[in-house]
């Protein structure tokens, strides 16, 4: 009964005026808390974003900004001392934060797939690729081994690897890094998920292969209308393949909006800093411009705007009050006191 009622309720409360049919993921005011002996602290402090079917969202920020934890919290797999303390994650009309372990397990790897940084680490070293793929299919579909095998072969074809039959019998160490990541992508495609969360999928790869893998991922997502959350610190990649971008800093989204708009005219000083920090050869500059200082630890966040100690345009109000997120006319949302309406 709740299954039918839930989406309607959701539709009225949070997606007002929005075409509900197209909405895939809605993260509202998500907070992730880590309870350690030294005390509780929040790694994600109220993050909200949404994703339509087939839309690509880039989640960028420095290491430790809470990007990966946000990604993991979508599939409700935050490791032990951490837990979702507030907010909800609506996926296909269901609140993932409130599902039971077994219901969540069914969604994981079936409707939502995740791709990690290092393909060497994520594949089981002592099992053949075939075994790992067939196991995955069997965990989610009531099919015979032969059918599971056929599905695996088809997916390996889809990620453009030749002679899939032979590949199924090979072990992960027999593949190169790029090939391995292709296999990982093939595994994530096994159940035709609606959403793929890619956590720095190309960081561990060669530069030449990065482009190939990114292109493949983009093609697959576009052709199958899959939503993509791309977690990365590579702004160049994000600007090329995503429609929307969300910039995270110290557990908050400081700026979000259409990728082209945000990259062309960054409003938040942090976003500006990130873009300026990209190496540019055109201007003949000798030094890279960097953002001074480091990101504050999550245990002792500064009062006011978390970015103020590093901000060049810091004012009195920034030190005392935390800026609210405001929506601008161009569709960009920014959390900064300096931005004019």
């Amino acid at each position, binding site marked *: 009964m709740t299954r039918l009622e839930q989406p309607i309720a959701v539709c009225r409360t949070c997606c007002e005026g929005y075409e509900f049919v197209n909405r895939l993921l809605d993260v509202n005011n998500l907070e992730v808390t880590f309870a350690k002996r030294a005390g509780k602290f929040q790694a994600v402090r109220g993050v909200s974003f949404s994703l339509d079917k087939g839309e690509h969202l880039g989640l960028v920020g420095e290491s430790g900004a809470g990007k990966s934890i946000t990604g993991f919290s979508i599939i409700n797999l935050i490791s032990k001392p951490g837990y979702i303390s507030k907010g909800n994650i609506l996926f296909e009309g269901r609140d993932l934060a409130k599902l039971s372990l077994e219901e969540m397990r069914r969604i994981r790897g079936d409707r939502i797939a995740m791709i990690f940084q290092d393909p060497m680490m*994520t594949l089981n070293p002592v099992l053949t690729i075939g075994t790992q793929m067939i196991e995955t299919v069997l*965990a989610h579909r009531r099919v015979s081994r032969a059918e599971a095998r056929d599905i695996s072969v088809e997916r390996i074809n889809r990620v453009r690897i030749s002679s899939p039959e032979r590949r199924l019998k090979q072990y992960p160490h027999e593949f190169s890094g790029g090939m391995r990541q292709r296999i990982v992508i093939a595994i994530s495609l096994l159940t035709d998920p609606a959403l793929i969360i890619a956590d720095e999928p190309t960081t561990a790869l060669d530069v030449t292969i990065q482009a190939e893998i990114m292109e493949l991922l983009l093609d697959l997502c576009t052709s199958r209308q899959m939503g993509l959350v791309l977690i990365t610190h590579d702004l160049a990649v994000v600007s090329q393949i995503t429609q929307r971008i969300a910039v995270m800093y110290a557990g908050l989204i400081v700026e979000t909006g259409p990728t082209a708009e945000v990259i062309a005219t960054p409003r938040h000083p942090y976003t500006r800093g990130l873009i300026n920090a990209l190496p540019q050869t055109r201007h003949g500059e000798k030094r890279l411009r960097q953002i001074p200082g480091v990101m504050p630890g999550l245990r002792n966040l500064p009062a006011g705007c978390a970015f103020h100690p590093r901000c060049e345009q810091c004012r009195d109000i920034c030190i005392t009050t935390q800026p609210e997120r405001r929506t601008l006319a161009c569709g960009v949302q920014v959390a900064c006191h300096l931005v004019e309406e």
Partner: protein
Amino acid sequence: MNILAMNWRRFRESQALYAFLRDPVAIGSFTILVVLTLVSFLAPWTAQHNVYDTATLELLDAHTPPAWLDQGLERYPLGTDDQGRDLFSSIIFGMRTSLLIGLGAVALQAFLGICIGLISGYTGGRLDTLLMRVADVQLSFSTLMVAIFISAIFEAVLGVGFFERYAVLLLVVIIGLAEWPQYARTVRASVLAEKKKEYVEAARVIGLPASRIMWRQILPNALSPVLVISTVQVANAIMSEAALSFLGLGMPVTQPSLGSLIKSGFTYIFSGSWWITLFPGITLVTLILVINLLGDWLRDYLNPKLYKHM
């Protein structure tokens, strides 16, 4: 046929075979072990006398010394025991019993230990604490003591007659129950190490159920210490069996094992019949030494960080 040929080629080109063929100790102990195993499991054909058939015993031949001594007889190359049984045949049959008990007990230990260690290591928390404390308590008694305890209970509950009839099976159970903690601890330790690796996380992300992650993903990665410990445990189980039989709690005299042979000769060692104890003893030592040497080799091979000959 094609698959067979392919596997054969894979085996012939494998690193294991290469390393094995360059280790004379490993080759030597493997050869001896194979010979001993073959001879003992083919006992009905390799032994001259069937020691289970009491009708063939000649009491008059009791205490015949080995053939090369003065009063020795050609029929009994290693002499006879106090019942007039041919010692050579008894050793062959006895070794078969000992090996059977050793392998059986290790199979049981491995089953218990792997299940408990896997669940304990993967689940963690209270269940882990409980299971490991049980293992600790059992380890704080000597395994022999636990085995004596269990076998005393079995004998009391089932009766001596029943115990003698199913002695092999019961000894397997006794030794299996007495030594599972070693397995459980080893498996748990490697599960704990494997659990932190990213492929386990990835398996959870894929949505595999916990039981599948344990058995299909973690266990194959945790198997190499299990292999090593298995060889050593076979030797241990054979020794436990010998010790129990020596104490009179193991195999009955009518069904000789190496331990019960040593025991039956021990009574006569000072009255001159030293061979009844000595030859089974030598066999036991050889068997255990060979198995342990192979276990050592396997450990060195599976753990390349331990270079002995650097």
